[in-house]
């Protein structure tokens, strides 16, 4: 398949992920939407790497996957910590740093 088809798919996937981040109030779903956004970026990296046959895009995707793993670990740990102290995973109620 030509590169542009993958790119269009990547744009739509990123849009879905961002909508999830903005619209949802469950912190867990927001973290999952961030994973969707990162995967949309991976798809664009790989489709651009494929046409010229350059391996660097694959290496970058590897780094993004490692980064996503670190982000998920820390994000979920923060979520568990917040849930322990405040008994909620609702982002509208976690407003301590607003005041």
């Amino acid at each position: 398949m030509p590169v542009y088809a993958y790119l269009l798919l990547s744009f739509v996937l990123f849009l879905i992920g961002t909508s999830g981040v903005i619209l949802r109030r469950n912190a867990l779903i927001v973290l999952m939407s961030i994973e969707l956004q990162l995967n949309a970026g991976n798809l664009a990296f790989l489709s651009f790497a494929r046409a010229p046959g350059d391996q660097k895009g694959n290496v970058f995707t590897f780094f993004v996957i490692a980064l996503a793993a670190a982000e998920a670990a820390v994000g979920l740990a923060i979520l568990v910590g917040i849930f322990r102290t405040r008994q909620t995973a609702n982002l509208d109620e976690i407003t301590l740093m607003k005041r």
Partner: protein
Amino acid sequence: VLETLSLTDVSPPEIAVFVILALGTLGGALYTITRRNPVTAVMSLVATFFALAALYATLDAHFVAVLQVLVYAGAIMVLFIFVVMILNREEVQPISFKGIVTRALGVMAVAYISYLGAWVVWSQRAQKGSAIASLLNSGSAAPPVGYGTVSGVGMSMFREFVFPFEAISLLLLVAIVGGLIVSRSAHQTELAEERARHIEEVRAKAGPEIKLLPGGEPAEGADDAHAAAGHH
């Protein structure tokens, strides 16, 4: 139609596979962000990641496709499932209506940016003869030998990207330590502080030579040393 989409040299099965995988990816993603039950959302996200891994495989990125299944569908999603089990709350109102106008504006802005990006790709693709168009329309030619395999990617990673690779290992270490510290409960912190205070007390009583077991108790024979230090 195939001519305008520059699909003339793409075989019909390939198109069919791409369409199925793309629909699976988008459907899974939409299902993920609309579910009320977090377990359903996680499961559909796993399905999305499997479809994405297959898409990566159609892009000849075999190594990354395997990584996607192992790391994303395996490790990260198991982590998510664990946290879902800890939290285990049904949402009353999954969509947040607090500040809905701002949120809707944000979604519209992102939709507009995505539309612009897609429009740029689509219009550049149609420009006959330009370098960008030939890049965007390419994809059917076979990649160089070793492209996307473990050895090919490994060669690139350990020749050109050794420093970022080591930096990533440091990042993962920081993430492990940070995750442990952040998710620690207040009770555990209290216990650890108490243990540390106990160790300090024993050390202060016994002088600097005493050997301590990990729990903070003096090691065997240390009682004599303690007594000697006391009489001294």
